[in-house]
């Protein structure tokens, strides 16, 4: 297993957010994390990237406890793209993507780092934006740039928090296609918190549904995204159809 999350508990002040979470992630696997607002999805990702420290339990990356890794060492292996970022100061796209090299380099960036940035910009087809200020770009373009930044970091595990929120459907598909492509090309593993159940069904290998800080269901998209599970987790009546070999969820009405 690439990544193991064992009995992780986390609470803010004394409000428990995560209760005994256990997850295993294989190499080159895409795990989708779905669940209602406040279920603990973002907190889970933050714990895995050690932005938050769980009160109990441990997280093992390649059989090493991440608590014992130095921050820079962890950053070489794990990338994280938060749901929203705000830049206060001007920064070009090129410089922003170059920041992904931070765990690997000292004060000065080398030609190799420049090449890696150019390579990633090309991979994501955003070369034209290279010298633009990131704050002038649309939400979809910004999301691509943050993905580019995480890719130049060359992580083995990539954590994404709502990568498609605020994106139009074209950007949603583009962003998720890119993630799928790099998973197959570079063999990285991905954990992705995502609200859209249909995108989750289409782009992930396995799905877990979280609810109230616990894992409510886990497994293949078909076994997890059932009308019964969704009714329990979200309190919504849905119809589950099949489209292109994946479950396709049509929401009907919220339950009273």
């Amino acid at each position, binding site marked *: 297993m690439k990544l193991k999350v064992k009995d992780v508990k986390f609470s803010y002040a004394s409000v428990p957010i995560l209760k005994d979470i256990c997850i295993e992630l294989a190499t080159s696997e895409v795990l989708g994390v779905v669940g209602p607002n406040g279920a603990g999805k973002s907190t889970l990702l933050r714990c895995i*990237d050690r932005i938050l420290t769980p009160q109990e339990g441990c997280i093992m990356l390649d059989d090493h406890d991440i608590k014992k890794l130095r921050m820079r060492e962890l950053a070489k292996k794990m*990338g994280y793209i938060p749901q929203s970022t705000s830049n206060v100061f001007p920064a070009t796209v090129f410089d922003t993507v170059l920041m992904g090299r931070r765990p690997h380099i000292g004060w000065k960036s080398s030609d190799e780092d420049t090449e890696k940035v150019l390579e990633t910009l090309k991979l994501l087809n955003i070369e034209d934006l290279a010298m633009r200020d990131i704050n002038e770009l649309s939400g979809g373009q910004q999301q691509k740039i943050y993905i580019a930044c995480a890719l130049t970091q060359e992580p083995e595990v990539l954590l994404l928090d709502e990568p498609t929120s605020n994106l139009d459907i074209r950007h949603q598909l583009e962003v998720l296609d890119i993630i799928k492509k790099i998973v197959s090309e570079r063999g990285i593993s991905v954990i992705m918190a995502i609200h859209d159940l249909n995108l989750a069904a289409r782009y992930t290998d396995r799905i877990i549904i979280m609810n109230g800080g616990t894992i409510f269901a886990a497994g293949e998209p078909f076994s997890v995204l059932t009308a019964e599970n969704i009714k329990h987790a979200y309190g919504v009546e849905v119809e589950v159809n099949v489209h292109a070999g994946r479950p396709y969820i049509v929401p009907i009405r919220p339950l009273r």
Partner: protein
Amino acid sequence: MTSSTEAISGTQTKSEEIKAQYKKFIGRKILFIFFSLFLILILAGIAATIGSFPITVTEVYSIIWRCLFQEPATTEEFVVWNLRLPRILMGILAGMGLAIAGTMMQGILRNPLASPFTIGIASGAGFGATLAICFGAGIVGGEYLIIGNAFLFALIPTFIILGLARYRSATPETMILAGIALFYIFSGLIALVLYFSEADPAMDAYFWMIGSLGGRASEWNAVTSVSIVLTGCVIPLIWKSWDLNVMGAGDERAKSLGVNVERTRVFIMLIASLLTAGIVCFTGTIGFIGLVAPHVCRIVIGGDNRFLIPASGLFGAALLLGADTVARTIIAPMILPVGILTYIMGGPLFLYLIIRRKREYW
């Protein structure tokens, strides 16, 4: 076949194009740094000739050259070496230090409105100096009473915020709010001391707080002290500039890129405070340099702190030197404290920047 080769060469030229553009952008930053350096040299030349005692530029330089090897003998030599040169150097060093401290404070607080004084350094220093001036009370005695007191009290807010960071994580919001609270506390204490003191020392204390490059600030030993503090502080700040760039994109992203955000923020705050205190204790609180210089430089060269630190340092030096030259000449033979001028000129300049900015920040 042809189309695929075209495609390959097309993407290659695109990469080359980006590289060329990037190099050009870096070239522009370096050009700006040299421009600021040039501006300092010009202003220093002008400042050295201006005054109640007329001396030409060539004379100035030959006097400086001679005095490097011997004690000043003539009146001209004395004027240039002991009065004008240290004042010019102090202007350069103080402007540089305040601008760099401002850049760092804006960076760690992620707030373009921050300055070296945001976390209460100015009012702390002001209280220390007021205590010394009005009551002769202080931690260091003798002729360094005011300077020593101002320096130590300037650092009190920083240490209070350091202490707070043990209970609440050192977020920009915590630090700014604590800074405002400390500003009020020290302002109140200053008012209290002034209320109970005689008119003359109260006036002196008030003038101290305006900030000037005259008196104590333009003595050679002040210049030496400030240059030591500046060198000692700027090196670690430049070393941390890459981390500061990463923190500009938010704490979470910086952490995921391996930066220990809280520790870096506290470290930079400490160094920037030392730098500010080391200057302010000689000059008093000279405002706006630390706020305006980083802004202007960000407009011209962008937000990369590796270039922004030297650029805003040099630009701040030119700004303060220019302001002091105006302050010395505007109602000659009277010399205004430069602090009055930086406030009066800085305000409109700042308003202009607000009007012409393109976005939420600049």
